């Protein structure tokens, strides 16, 4: 068998934050690297690249996923929302505002992932008990230890029945 030392590239098309974008890319590129390195959407973070930290969380068709565990090619035709796509112009998404008010972050590196997970949680209409909020937010590690305030931000959103969407 012929030894191929570099995979071929293909053109793909992604629906990113409401706009359709084309890219020529190798199949081995993860959605996370595509966002950060090719589309310069660096709001989505890489913390582990192994599905263990949640820093790379984005919304695909309204559902929170770890973008490091998905190849960019697999996401064609789906609606991808990153943290950059949450605010409406100058108006922050209520979850973003709640994170600021509750000081639900310190260094801010896990924050886009935490926010996307919160939106995903609201979309699922989950988080109806404190345990459920803590459980469902446990896929996002915050090494700064902002959990107590993240919890408060999410709880406020659930109580106010804020809609997640994007």
């Amino acid at each position: 068998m012929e030894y191929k030392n570099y995979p071929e590239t293909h053109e793909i098309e992604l629906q990113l934050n409401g706009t359709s974008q084309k890219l020529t890319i190798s199949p081995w590129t993860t959605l996370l690297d595509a966002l950060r390195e090719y589309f310069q959407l660096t709001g989505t973070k890489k913390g582990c690249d192994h599905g263990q930290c949640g820093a790379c969380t984005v919304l695909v068709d309204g559902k929170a996923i770890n973008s490091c565990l998905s190849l960019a090619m697999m996401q064609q035709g789906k609606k991808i929302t990153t943290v950059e796509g949450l605010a409406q112009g100058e108006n922050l998404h209520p979850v973003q505002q709640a994170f600021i008010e509750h000081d639900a972050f310190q260094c801010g590196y896990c924050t886009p992932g935490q926010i996307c997970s919160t939106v995903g949680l609201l979309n699922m209409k989950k988080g109806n008990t404190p345990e459920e909020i803590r459980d469902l937010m446990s896929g996002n590690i915050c090494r700064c230890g902002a959990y107590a305030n993240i919890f408060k931000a999410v709880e406020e959103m659930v109580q106010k029945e804020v809609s997640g969407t994007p």
Partner: protein
Amino acid sequence: MKVLNNITGVATTRVDGRKKVTGTAPYTAEFNPANLVHGYIVNSTISTGTITKIDTTKALDVAGVREVFTHENAPLSVKINADYSDPMAPPGSPFRPLYNDQILYNGQPIAMVVADTFETARYAAGLIEVAYNTSGKSTTNIKDNLDRAFTDDDLPDPPKPRGNAKKAYQESEIKIEAAYLQPREYHNPMEPFATVAQWDADEERFLIYDKIQGVASSQGYIAGIFNMEKEKVRVLSEFVGGGFGSGLRPQYQLFFAAMAAKVLNLPVKVVMTRKQMFSFGHRPACFQEFKLSTDKNGKLTSIQHKAYGETSQFEKYTETIVDWSGLMYACENVELNYKLVPLDVYTPNDMRAPGGTTGMYGLECAMDELAVKAGIDPLELRLINYAEKDQNEGKPFSSKELKACYSRAAEKFGWKNRKAEPRSHKEGHTLIGYGMATGVWEALQQKASAKAIFTAEGHLTVSAATADIGTGTYTVMAQIAAETVGLPLEHVTFKLGDSTLPKSPIEGGSWTVSSVGSAVKMVCVSLREKIYARAQETHPELFAESMIEDARFEKGELSIRDGRAVSFMEILNADERKSIETSVNSEPAENRDNYSCYTHSCVMVEVHVDEDLGMIRVPRVVNAIAGGKIINPKTAESQILGGVTWGIGMAIEEEGMMDDREGRIMNANLAEYHMPINADVQEIDVIFVEEKDEIVNPLGAKGLGEIGMVGTAAAIANAVYNATGKRIRELPITLDKLL
């Protein structure tokens, strides 16, 4: 001169909050200059020996690979110069990447592929073939190597013995002896270490984006290795995704990125993998032995504390572990010892509350054991032995509201409801335990500089080459500046993370507010004087006769006694020079030396232990802190919440597990190295007790980055004993140890 605006002391949301929640705060790896290439580092798989062969042919064959760097082709220039030290390097000879074929520890970086894309570099890195000659067994276990412990002139001496601790111990009837073991811990900030390096061949300059807790650290390191003037190395680090001490010293990706950028004359980005985040400095494993005794009234009669800390074979890393035992409690007979055990590991590095969280974990567990032995309430035992003076140095404290911490915490927590008898508080299958501990951390101040520019548009920019690793530096400095000058917060910007800005200490040791904050205050006082002097020229009718002492600076206006006022902007615009600029260097006041400056705390926790399964939960923590003036209660509380969370991790989760045969860490990933997650943290009450301190620094603020952690692990361990009757003297306290 009066300041009426209350901006400090008021809970204020972060000035960089919007950037952080919208994903627009740029962290190091997010700079993508044109023609950027990507580096991927390969690490050794043995711990001691030599590389006999390193074959890069297949990797070089991959389309898109630019170069593979190994010790065989690393530029000679970086080897002959050989000054690889950095400002925070401990005594010894710092590790030099790609310097020769020697392997000093498992996980040592030995090669780097540079390619057009990250994916290609990563793929090609897997094609490099390395052969080693392993030299004997690796030694990585501290407990097994205590016989190799040493002390020498490079190690700071612990405080001198006082009285005769051995004799007093022997003569006492109430005494305990206990030893505690703590594993390696890894910082693991969420943002991996990263560097984007650019070399300007014409000007022979570097422009480097680096993840670091102080740009001067990276700058000094690179200037040393490449034999350059510091001014030719500009380092930027505006947003840092957590540090916790890991960024006090530059990490190896900086060397690789800079070297490759210079050799290839291309911008190079190198980002560590999560696994590589376990391949450098860490909190050292530590073994501690205690002997404590009291008289029948609970008065301490002796303290003996011996600690063994791990270091590498090439540097002597030390921590302050035993000194706290001499400081904290009134006791006439004290003996302290500290030794290092050299192991085949990378040199440990300061990690949140270095030394303090370790030493106080031991001391406060031992105090709990003593309380049980003496039949005295643990809180009472602390109060009986309360130290009104620094017991090591005999100096008064600049302030010490620890008693208030004890009483406020006890009241909030409901300490009086604690049942002294272990296993006596039970709900269903849940054993409930209460535990407490004291916390302490140094309130240090370093030299720092700052600059202020006030423009005719009414905007004030204050700057210093410090960092914001999530601590809130941007916000707190802007608050101090706004209040001092008399401007709304929105009119002030604080700049940091650029080596061209005024010199500042590295962000660590909880001293940023104290050091940089003092410089910011000073520069703003100087600015006020300049505004006033300018006003006397531009508005003589108002200010010629008046004195600055009678003037008010508030809401962007300068006013005098009779109420007449002029806005700063008017003053600035009335003169063709327009803006005003000023700089200062600040340093600790001399009289500070006559006092001991410390932050104190009392931590109380409730634990729930599943009687059958040994599962431990921490539903409630109360932490009362005496930290001087709190500049921003909001970010201050976050610091403590983070510290407590770290204490939970230290007590029941974190452990770098080593395969001692290979000297390789086995759980180098975030699934198996357990750190606290959301479900591990429940109620945490933070109380800041009032504490006035006019000595510690001009702000009266002490710094809060570490104190929240100190004592927390001990309080949890003590609560676990109270719940179960089991003393687990080896961290983390996992369920297997309880069953």
